[in-house]
């Protein structure tokens, strides 16, 4: 997860990576045995929910996936 976030931060991630990160977070959250695993993905999931635009502006392929933000 951290590795994937680092890729996004470095601007090397694609929209597919973002989707995969979200899937991974949900999977870890739902399949975990302990409370740590069940709650650790929450920061990623909530930032994705409320600040999705910020993730999307960092994507490497945003030009190709219908970028509208900057016109």
């Amino acid at each position: 997860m951290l590795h994937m976030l680092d890729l996004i931060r470095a601007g090397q991630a694609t929209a597919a990576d973002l989707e995969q990160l979200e899937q991974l977070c949900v999977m870890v959250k739902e399949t975990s045995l302990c409370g740590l695993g069940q709650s650790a993905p929450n920061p990623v999931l909530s930032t994705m929910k409320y600040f999705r635009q910020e993730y999307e502006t960092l994507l490497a392929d945003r030009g190709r996936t219908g970028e509208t933000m900057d016109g």
Partner: protein
Amino acid sequence: MAARTFTIDGQLISAREGETILQAARDHGIFIPTLCHLDGVSDVGACRLCLVEIEGSRMLRPACVTPVVEEMVVRTDTVRLREYRRMIIELLFAERNHICAVCVANGHCELQDLAVAVGMDHVRFDYAFPHCDVDISHPLFGVDHNRCVLCTRCVRVCDEVEGVHTWDVAGRGADARVITDMRQPWGESRSCTSCGKCVLACPTGTIFRRGATVGEMERDRNKIAYIVAARDQRW
């Protein structure tokens, strides 16, 4: 013993009281994938592959440690569960250096079989390529941490069946390793009885009998010349 009746995937099933969902499902020929379960030793519910959906429960439950309850409704094969299982297997592959082509367990590997069963055609996650040691200090056996999935079967079989507890787990997260005694080389372990139960328990090629690796398959071609010479002498 009291009987319990419940439903798995729409099929009405009766099980003994105290039986787990996994046992009941297996008795009725319903396949639930699992990696850390081993008949004869206790269950830990660690691999998360046997997770099932139970109606009325928000959480997914591991079938190997969940006892059956009267009239519970269990689903073992939903789209969500299939996707999670595949992701779990992929993460296991990404976490260590699983190179089937050079593995002693190739073709006899539970991880490999499960990857086929869940339909894993490739790994979507980046491989971690961790540095893992290989310990062949024991005269009979070897342990290759590159192939370990940390199912802890060896730990449980050593503790519960042999009663020795040579094996244990050290470290956390990505640094977790199965270790012998106080993390000394296996060959220097004072408690190990060399019973080989861990080799039997290992689902992958992590713990193996020495002599089984490709590098150790020495071909003594002099034997052919010897046989030919022996034949020539006699006739």
